[in-house]
């Protein structure tokens, strides 16, 4: 839909619309306050890299956005639609959150492919059963997507028989199959052997280049600098510094960010 309108020749280049907005997000686990008021906005087509030390709350923030984690308070707006929350932060309308989740595709550090299904079955699972796409159409699209991430011919293989890099690329194909309006990556290459990181980054780089909206938690600083148009540095549950990659990496302001960048090299 969006692409069709974007491709219409007579249209003015319209102002980019907002994809994800997070306002004053708080999250505590018991007495441990992990997020202490985070604000973040991603426009359509933005690639936002989220960096920070271990335990700074990067994963928690990402998981709050699709309510895999229940925020303690704050506001989350996806594609202009505010997620209805109860006073305790839990989603007030389960149907709404399920609908919104189908637009936010998540890619996990541990891939989390369904192990009892083949790659093809993994990719068609959500389109067929959640989005009610006709199966032949879903299969055709799944084949294209698997070929696109370099897994043509592996359709009938089970995840456990593949390398981590291949599994993660399959997980990305599964994410693309729902035609998401934004993708959430949580350290997609951290569980991979070093020689397999490149093949996954290549796929993500392509997605960035085609204008996909992405939130990307990563420890790959070089990669973040290259693909992101906005970088957020999280420190102990707060955004310590953010801006374009050239600024954040080239001219960090806060002492903590300077330290962090020198420590990760």
């Amino acid at each position, binding site marked *: 839909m969006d692409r069709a309108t974007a491709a219409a020749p007579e249209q003015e280049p319209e102002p980019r619309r907002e994809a994800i907005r997070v306002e004053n997000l708080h999250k505590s686990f018991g007495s441990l306050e992990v997020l202490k008021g985070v604000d973040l906005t991603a426009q359509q087509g933005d690639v936002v890299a989220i960096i920070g030390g271990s335990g700074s709350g990067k994963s928690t923030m990402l998981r709050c956005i699709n309510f*895999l984690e229940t925020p303690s308070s704050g506001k989350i707006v996806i594609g202009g639609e505010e997620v209805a929350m109860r006073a305790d932060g839990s989603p007030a309308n*389960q149907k709404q959150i399920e609908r*919104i989740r189908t637009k*936010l*595709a*998540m890619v996990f550090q541990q891939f989390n492919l369904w192990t009892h299904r083949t790659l093809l079955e993994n990719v068609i699972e959500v389109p067929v*059963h*959640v989005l009610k796409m006709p199966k032949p159409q879903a299969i055709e699209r799944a084949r294209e997507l698997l070929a696109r991430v370099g897994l043509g011919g592996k359709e009938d293989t089970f995840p456990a028989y593949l390398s981590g890099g291949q599994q993660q690329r399959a997980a990305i194909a599964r994410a693309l199959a729902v035609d998401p309006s934004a993708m959430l990556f949580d350290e997609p290459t951290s569980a991979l052997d070093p020689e397999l990181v490149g093949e996954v980054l290549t796929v993500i780089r392509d997605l960035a280049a085609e204008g996909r909206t992405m939130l990307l938690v990563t420890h790959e600083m070089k990669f973040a600098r290259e693909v992101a148009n906005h970088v957020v540095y999280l420190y102990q549950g707060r955004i310590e510094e953010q801006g374009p990659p050239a600024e954040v990496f080239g001219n960090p302001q806060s002492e903590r960010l300077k330290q962090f960048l020198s420590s990760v090299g």
Partner: protein
Amino acid sequence: MTGLLEILGLGASAELLSLSGWGGNLLRGLANSLQIAFGAFGLGLVIGLFGAYGKLYGGKVTRDLLAIYTTVIRAVPELVLILILYYVGSDIINQISEAMGGGRVEINGVAAGIWVLGVVQGAYATEVLRGAIQAVPTGQIEAAKSYGMPAIMIMRRVTIPAMMSFAVPGLANLWLIATKDTALLAVVGFNELTLETRQAASSTRAYFTFFLAAGFLYLMVTLCSGAVFARIEKWARRGQPSLKEGSA
């Protein structure tokens, strides 16, 4: 030679076990046993699935009730349970029937057997399935959630298929126990294999022949079940490299 066979009671065995005679009774008893075992196992699975989900995700009251159920059933000897459940069950049905103005009802033996053994099986199945559900890596379920699957669909499409490989060995055991527990129904006068065998044996005094034949039938059931469950397990483990292949 003939004398020896006579002494062992084997000479007459073939005749005794003929299908038109006692042998046919034994086979009918076996059919009854299997019918009950099958029904009880199925009922146990249904109870077990609800029980497992209740124990894992239910409220406090649900969890307490289920804890009582599984503890009591697993603590009391099955023979005692069968007597209790059978007589309590038939009593309740009769009271309801009388309260509604009907007379005493004849309890259907198969239905009673299924209900009694099913309740027992359900307690064990609850624990087997609870363990299996807990063994499913959380990432499998999180992935399903994050793609907008509703809870029931997650259960149907992800949790149950993913837990099967953990559950099948325990369920296979339960099935074998179900086939043998049917023998306990003899105490409430149900015509399953063991009761038929006893009747045949005491009428003909050919104890050896009939109990050997019954033992053989139980053994065949176990062997066939083993083959069937091996296939089910193979299917449930699809996608998981076998240990053998891994070490090769």
